[in-house]
């Protein structure tokens, strides 16, 4: 005859064991599953007072702090002779198995010892109390808790899920509509944890993005100054002589982060506005960078591909999106200061390349003269007439040592041999005077009396090698 296994039914039983179980059931109505009148399963939440630092072989250097661990399952039954002559039978486990079997059996032994200490009395409550105290200390697992990648992923997922469930059960006063809202319609901002209701946040951010005020897409709290969960860069900026840079870094660190696009999506900002947000943040970051090169087409003026790629690389290196503290050239990447660009002849940068291609209209142009691309060797003048030392030297070298091909204008250098040149574009020409030579009989140019190049076919046979070597000394 099946009987309802409620704690009332248990408490009314004549059996002392059932009464004990009934008491436990009334204290843990949700955690206890009653199996029979004398046995049950108790799931005890593990929420350590200090979050447990946990790592795995490929989880990176920074441990994840777990606030919640999978519950400890205590399966127990109280035999006939309990409590006077026999201890309860106990079985401890966790799913997934994050506590090692040795650990579990040690704890089980502690529980059985309690039965002895209590002089063979009713011990279930004492056991539960002991387990809860152990749980508060995370069962004295040594931190950082190193586990396999698989288990690490499971523990992190459990932690997130539990935090989410607890959050959803709460009620929060939204700072925007000022109304109390259930956790299920609320959002805790990832960078600072401030809670608002999703509809309010969505309306706020949608408005800002529509107006183009993307740098205000931050926490809406008045006094929020948390930058992000990332610690501020500990190494001093590259130029310690620049106190302003240090100040700027501090000011930036105290700004709340702008939101990452995934978070906007979670809040319910429509996809087209999230796309607009990302594009505008990127544009602002490029505009802030004094080295950004813009398309030479007046109607386009989009940044060059190299500028965009460089920005993306820097962002990736800093581990931040364009949305983490608002900056273009960040203090962590002072390599992009204008000064460095001017002097940066030693280390090649895609922005130093003469050839720049527009990221939008694909127009290929020369960074120096802004004309459409003319090949690497054309001598051109910067629009403001200023050439860097390197460019001046290059120009001088080309003037002294090369002859332009009469067809493609490429400067051609002669390493050795006669003055009959064949350009990469298949033009035959004279290295001395740049005249076209007939492919079928090029030498007639050097054999015609009275011309400037008569009998000079082999002049400079040694090539420009000597010149080339002498050049740096001359320039010195």
């Amino acid at each position: 005859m099946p009987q309802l296994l409620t704690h009332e039914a248990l408490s009314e039983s004549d059996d002392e064991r059932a009464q004990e179980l009934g008491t436990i059931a009334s204290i843990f109505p949700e955690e206890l599953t009653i199996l029979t009148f004398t046995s049950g399963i108790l799931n005890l939440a593990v929420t350590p007072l200090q979050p447990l630092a946990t790592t795995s072989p490929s989880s990176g250097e920074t441990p994840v702090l777990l606030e919640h661990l999978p519950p400890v399952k205590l399966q127990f039954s109280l035999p006939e002779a309990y409590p006077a002559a026999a201890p309860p039978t106990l079985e401890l486990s966790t799913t997934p198995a994050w506590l090692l079997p040795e650990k579990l059996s040690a704890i089980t032994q502690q529980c059985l010892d309690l039965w002895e200490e209590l002089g063979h009395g009713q011990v279930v409550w004492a056991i539960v109390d002991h387990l809860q105290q152990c749980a508060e200390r995370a069962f004295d697992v040594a931190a950082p808790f190193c586990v396999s990648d698989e288990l690490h992923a499971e523990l992190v997922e459990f932690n997130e899920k539990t935090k989410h469930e607890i959050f959803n059960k709460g009620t929060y006063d939204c700072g925007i509509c000022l109304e109390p809202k259930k956790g299920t319609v609320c959002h805790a901002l990832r960078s600072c944890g401030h809670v608002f209701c999703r509809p309010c946040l969505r309306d706020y951010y949608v408005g800002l993005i529509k107006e183009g005020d993307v740098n205000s897409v931050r926490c809406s709290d008045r006094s929020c100054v948390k930058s992000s969960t990332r610690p501020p860069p500990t190494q001093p900026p590259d130029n310690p002589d620049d106190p302003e840079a240090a100040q700027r870094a501090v000011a930036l660190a105290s700004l709340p982060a702008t939101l990452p696009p995934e978070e906007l999506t979670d809040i319910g900002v429509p996809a087209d506005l999230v796309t607009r947000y990302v594009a505008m943040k990127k544009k602002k970051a490029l505009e802030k960078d004094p080295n950004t090169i813009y398309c030479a087409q007046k109607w386009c003026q989009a940044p060059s591909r190299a500028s965009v790629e460089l920005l993306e690389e820097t962002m990736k290196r800093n581990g931040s999106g364009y949305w983490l503290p608002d900056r273009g050239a960040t203090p962590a990447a002072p390599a992009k200061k204008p000064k460095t660009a001017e002097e940066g002849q030693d280390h090649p940068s895609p922005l130093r390349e003469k050839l720049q291609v527009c990221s939008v209209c694909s127009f290929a142009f020369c960074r120096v003269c802004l004309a459409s691309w003319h090949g690497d060797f054309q001598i051109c003048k910067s629009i403001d007439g200023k050439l860097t030392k390197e460019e001046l030297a290059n120009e001088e070298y080309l003037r002294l040592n090369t002859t332009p091909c009469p067809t493609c204008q490429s400067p051609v250098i002669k390493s050795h041999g006669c003055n009959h040149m064949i350009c990469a574009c298949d033009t035959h020409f004279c290295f001395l005077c740049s005249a076209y030579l007939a492919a079928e009989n090029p030498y007639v140019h050097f054999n015609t009396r009275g011309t400037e190049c008569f009998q000079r076919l082999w002049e400079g046979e040694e090539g420009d090698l000597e010149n080339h070597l002498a050049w740096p000394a001359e320039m010195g």
Partner: protein
Amino acid sequence: MATAQRRITREYAEIQSNQLEGVKIAPIDNDMFKWNIELTGPKDSPYAGGTFKLFLTLPDNYPFKPPILSFQTKIYHPNVSNDDKGSMCLGILRSDAWKPSCKIAAVLEMARGLLLEPNPDDAVEGSIAEEYKSRKASFEKTAKEWTKQYAK
């Protein structure tokens, strides 16, 4: 609009149940988007004894946009424009610095705080700010006179 109205009503109730020192509020008609404000001059300021009428306008998309606060009573103050607009320069009311979680009560408290302690480094009236910094006695004299004359 409905959201704005709900929030404004809530804020109004909050201020009613928790009166601000030296500040009186009175929404105009049933339109909760425009309020008459009265600030009494703080005791230890040249504005003591005066009552200053202000006008608070809340935008349709409040709280996403900041309220606008203007002095109806003429006042001699570095942070209030000396014209018929009487606009008040208050950092948190600039639209790029405004946060939706900022409440009207805080705005009004700050406005009154500014009477007690002007902020000459963020002034709308440069010459008054200059006077406040270098010739305080002269500033206070004029401020008192204006209070007597206009803020009765």
